[in-house]
């Protein structure tokens, strides 16, 4: 499947549903993410959101399919392009948008920002801005559950740009030697900022890099939410059973620049166009229409729902208060009354 790289799997039909998966729910989640990101872009343009803003547009299938295949208490550790992962886990859109606004009602109290979403109650543990820097930490969460003897696992989302960092290597080796219950999902969107994978990686098939550590690794069509769901379902069962870590290379593509600051001049227009044809939302919509699972009117209703969710989130964020200035020095260390 290596040829998938920079030749999108347009040929492939959408893969069949995994047992008992609610395909409509998956579609709605992807729509929600898409609209949320578009709303965020709008709010950034209006100066409501500051700093770096990295959108997940185009990659919705990866987080949606993968996270739907997990238990709600499985740990999620993601990078700075993590709004989609948080939404897929069920973190409230209002509190995510409020975080992007830097409001007190944000999931991280407005202190984290777009790159540092945390919702511990939902086992969503960030939101990290150092490339590959979150991988060792994710291994530690898995190690802890193994130590405690639970069957809880961790999933760690990384980008293709992280595969050449030393921490990628250290984390994969440790996960393999200690058989840690963790699934690494590499969102290979072919570019790390403006740098194409093939210009900086000795081996461009990321799953092969993982196999070199004796890790069960495979490449999946990251533009196909059902394929993602299937792959993660199967691997999660093995990982949960104590068979050691797994690795998925999800071939995908971001429909916008690296961040709002990026003019996206380094990607050929037709490459972007080609990939947009694979829009995971359009794709699943078509599948469901063809299968008569939904009617066009249902899809309109779902889109309307996604619009409403994004609008409500923006309104909530807008109306929320800023954190009080006195809170500046809170929570650097444990305080009286903390758990």
């Amino acid at each position, binding site marked *: 499947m290596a040829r998938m790289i920079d030749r999108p799997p347009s040929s492939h039909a959408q893969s069949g549903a995994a047992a008992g998966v609610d395909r409509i729910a998956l579609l709605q989640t992807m729509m929600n993410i898409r609209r949320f990101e578009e709303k965020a872009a709008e709010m950034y343009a209006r100066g409501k959101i500051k700093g770096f803003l990295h959108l997940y547009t185009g990659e919705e299938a990866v987080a949606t399919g993968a996270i739907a295949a997990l238990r709600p208490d499985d740990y999620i550790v993601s990078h700075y392009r993590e709004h989609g992962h948080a939404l897929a886990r069920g973190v409230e859109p209002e509190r995510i948008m409020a975080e992007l606004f830097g409001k007190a009602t944000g999931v991280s109290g407005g*202190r984290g920002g777009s790159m540092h979403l945390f919702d511990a109650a939902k086992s969503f543990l960030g939101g990290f801005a150092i490339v590959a820097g979150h991988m060792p930490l994710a291994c530690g969460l898995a190690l802890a559950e193994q130590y405690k003897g639970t069957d809880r696992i961790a999933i760690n989302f990384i980008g293709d740009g992280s595969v050449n960092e030393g921490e990628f290597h250290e984390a994969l080796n440790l996960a393999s030697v200690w058989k840690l219950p963790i699934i690494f999902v590499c969102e290979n969107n072919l570019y790390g900022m403006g740098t194409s994978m093939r210009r900086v990686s000795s081996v461009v098939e990321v799953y092969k890099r993982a196999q070199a550590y004796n890790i069960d690794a495979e490449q999946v069509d990251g533009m196909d939410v059902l394929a993602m769901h299937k792959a993660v379902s199967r691997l999660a069962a093995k990982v949960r059973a104590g068979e050691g870590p797994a690795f998925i290379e999800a071939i995908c593509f971001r429909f916008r620049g690296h961040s709002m600051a990026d003019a996206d001049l380094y990607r050929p227009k037709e490459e972007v166009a080609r990939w947009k044809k694979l829009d995971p939302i359009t794709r699943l919509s078509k599948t469901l229409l063809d299968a008569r699972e939904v009617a066009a009117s249902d899809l309109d209703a779902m889109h309307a729902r996604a619009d409403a969710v994004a609008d409500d989130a923006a309104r909530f964020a807008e109306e929320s208060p800023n954190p009080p200035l006195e809170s500046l020095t809170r929570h650097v260390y444990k305080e009286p009354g903390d758990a």
Partner: protein
Amino acid sequence: MPEITYREAIRQALRYQLQHDERVFLMGEDIGAYGGSYAVTRGFLDEFGEKRVKDTPIAESVIVGAGIGAAIAGLKPMVELMTINFSLLAIDQIVNNAAKLRYMSNNQVHVPLVIRMAGGAGSQLGAQHSQSLESWYAHIPGLQVVAPATPYDAKGLLMSAFESDDPVIFIEHTALYPMKGDVPEEPYYLPFGKADVARAGNDVTLIGHGGSVHQAFRAAKQLEADGIDAEVLNLRTLRPLDTEAILASVRKTNRAIIIEDDWQFGGFGGEVAAIIQERAFDDLDAPVMRCSGADVPMPYNGALEQAALPQEADIVRLAKSMV
């Protein structure tokens, strides 16, 4: 003299070096096709080609280490690490190799390497992307630490960095890239270890580097209104530090305030304060004070971030309390 931005001043120095010294090449993440995360090297790849402008993997240790090796072998590499935050991933290379090799080898090898990185906060990038760790580098013998405050500083100091035969940590303040100032078109070289008196005054010395110099300058203007005549000292380089200029100023004003974005505790301001009281004890009419960042990881929220950073008003208040 043409007025250009801090960014353009850096570009001029880099282009001059690439044009006039075959041994010079640039290496870093996204400096080529992307044009640099702060657009400093935009267009360089087309102009100078892949041999001179190398896009690297995201792998800070090997980027810096390869720069060290290439420098030892007689080239003049310039490594860009995007931001000082990411330099933590290459810090062993910088501290244990770049800084120590001339000494360890008994002067058989040396490391003429320029490492550029953007530092500082203020644009709501959050805790992991808003650090000012120059005090860490300033602590290490074998390194030279440069922190330009103006376009003029930036070009002249970067030109000198390439002249140096020892490693240079060149820290650009993110907030200054768009800032404009007069810069000669022809090449010029500003010496390391020479501070610049940005404003002469008699009542109190405001000491800073990078972005803090401008805050100090604006604070000085405000203090004028209150009849306080502040001197503003732009350090330009932290290592070597222009101790003489600092002492000369304090012996005149008898008061000093150090301004820094960085955390106060264990920061660079402490060193400057320690030196002043050590060498100019009897000239001081008041303790040396520091106006620094709050002792917290940087919060994202804009108001909180500003509250975490030193403000002109803080400098003014401090100065008034001292005279």
